[in-house]
């Protein structure tokens, strides 16, 4: 029957593809390390993290294509692929699995359970609170560690009070579907409660909702603060437009968002977070520690960035003392 012929052809194609692949990826010099990088989606912050990881490894002597093979996979937010990729890294017996974002770190930790493959995460805000690791310092029963991008929300609030004296209400826009943002929203309420400031929240589910969410806060808040929320940061221009039109000072919490038109923040570069992660992975490849005993790190390089022009457009002036402290000052 002709139908059987077709099935045979398909099976043959599968076999040829499947058998050909190991030869293309299996060749290389002896003493080569292989790491798998699993990234959740293409996003400026996550891409910068990945570049940082690769450069951090290179700085410590693990150069891609030389003595290091990097299997980079990106699930583009398809959760069914997240588990497939993790399983693939485990069956390939890579030396370290590096994960950028929460779901893929969990999938990798689950797939690597019972094997000796360490999992290193990067750019996760609250790995302890989310239950990924049992403690910041020691987690001897878990073969997972990494670098957190925890920001100090209290420092950001202090900065807001210094630049906008007499602030009574702060608006916060975030995606309730992002666990990092929900955590930061709680931190914001904590920090504001201590100073007697009220927080008004508005949530979005896609970056297309950002405009409406920003408009809903007009007249109800003195300033708008936004955490490291991937969804809101993707639609930042809409938010900045509303803030400029209504003279609402806007404070994001990462440096690239300041450059795009936010006023000021204590933040870090995701490249630095990645770089720090790369150094951590290098330590493991050196044999100097395992995921069991290397504590979870927080981002080390934190700096102040301000945007003088943005502040002017939103009707506030940044005190000279703050500008003097800033490492990055955007004038345009």
């Amino acid at each position, binding site marked *: 029957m002709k139908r059987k012929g077709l*099935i045979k052809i398909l099976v043959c194609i599968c076999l040829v*593809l499947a058998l050909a692949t190991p030869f293309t990826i299996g060749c290389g010099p002896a003493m080569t390390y292989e790491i798998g990088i699993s990234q959740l989606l293409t996003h400026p912050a996550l891409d910068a993290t990945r570049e940082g990881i690769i450069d951090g490894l290179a700085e410590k002597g693990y150069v891609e294509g030389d003595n290091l093979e990097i299997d980079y*996979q990106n699930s583009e937010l398809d959760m069914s692929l997240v588990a497939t990729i993790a399983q693939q890294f485990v069956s*390939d017996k890579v030396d370290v699995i590096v994960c950028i974002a929460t779901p893929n770190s969990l999938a990798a930790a689950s*797939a690597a359970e019972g094997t000796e493959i360490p999992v290193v995460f990067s750019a996760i805000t609250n790995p302890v609170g989310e*239950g990924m690791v049992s403690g910041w310092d020691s987690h001897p029963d878990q073969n997972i560690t990494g670098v957190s991008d925890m920001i100090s929300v209290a420092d950001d609030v202090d900065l807001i009070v210094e630049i906008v004296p007499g602030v009574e209400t702060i608006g916060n826009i975030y995606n*309730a*579907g992002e666990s990092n943002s929900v955590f930061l929203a709680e931190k914001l309420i904590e920090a504001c409660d201590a100073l007697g400031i009220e927080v008004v929240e508005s949530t979005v589910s896609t970056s297309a909702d950002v405009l409406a969410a920003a408009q809903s806060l007009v007249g109800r808040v003195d300033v708008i603060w936004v955490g490291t929320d991937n969804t809101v940061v993707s639609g930042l221009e809409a938010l900045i437009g509303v803030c400029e039109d209504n003279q609402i000072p806007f404070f994001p919490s990462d440096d690239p968002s300041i450059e795009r038109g936010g006023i000021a923040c204590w933040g870090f570069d995701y490249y630095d977070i990645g770089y720090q992660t790369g150094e951590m992975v290098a330590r493991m490849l050196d044999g100097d520690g395992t995921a069991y005993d290397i504590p979870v790190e927080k981002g080390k390089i934190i700096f102040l960035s301000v945007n003088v022009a943005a502040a002017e457009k939103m009707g506030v002036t940044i005190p000279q003392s703050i500008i003097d402290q800033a490492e990055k000052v955007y004038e345009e």
Partner: protein
Amino acid sequence: MDFFTSLMSTSVYEGLVYGFVAIGVYFTFRVLSFPDLTVDGSFPLGGAVAAILIINGANPWLATLAALAAGVCAGLGTALLNTKLRINALLAGILMMVALYSINLMIMGRSNIPLLREVTIFDHVAQALGMRADINLSIIVMVVFSAVTLFVLNWFLHSEIGLALRATGDNEQMVRGLGTDTNMTTILGVSISNGLVALSGALVAQNQGFTDVGMGIGMIVMGLASVIIGEGIFRPRKITTILLAVVGGTFAYRLFIGIALRLGLPPTNLKLITAVLVIVALAIPYIRKKIRHEWVPPAVRM
């Protein structure tokens, strides 16, 4: 584990576990001719219900069963919107899917629940069989789950009510003329479909170690693609073989994705590969007929 066995075992496991989604989609799209988009919401609903119960100490089997029940309720909601309020099927599904996003967040209380150190049904089975909870065990669990489900569904679709359900999709007017309540068959079909999808969500969550509110994105596309590929490759005629072909289609779909990942293609191209796959599966029957000069334009068909 060498390359080939690891690729095959991953694809077999995924084919079986996501096969439930594909069968659910087959139920609505093909059997009932009801384009139901609730799937993108009922899949994470299953994961959410199972996860929240498990982290609160419930028995994982009961949690899985509760997830199935929650999915049935979601399907019931969509079907009631359509049959009682006369909302267009496509729109009813979309509305339910959107509503479920918030409902899932409410159930979970946050967007992501890790199940890494929780006891799941896979751990139960592993303990009972004295095995390690690895991919082989997952396959064993899924083979049993699929076999039981397929057997029950096959029996159901051959029962009197099952036949009425199948007839509803073919010719609603006629079924109504014969005195069967088509609203009832629609409600039943959509509920079963979403129950299966939620079951899949609960199993996937327990196996992959977490539930995420964004877990359902693209499920409907995957389900449809699997159905179409299954039909394209196996060309089944009887309902029993159709059910098997749909699971086979899911396996083929996951296998192709697995190969694409292995080939080291730029990860960003993966969605494009998915689209190409479905286009090829859709075009095969036509091209085959064209080659054999059997093609009859729709206008001259009797």
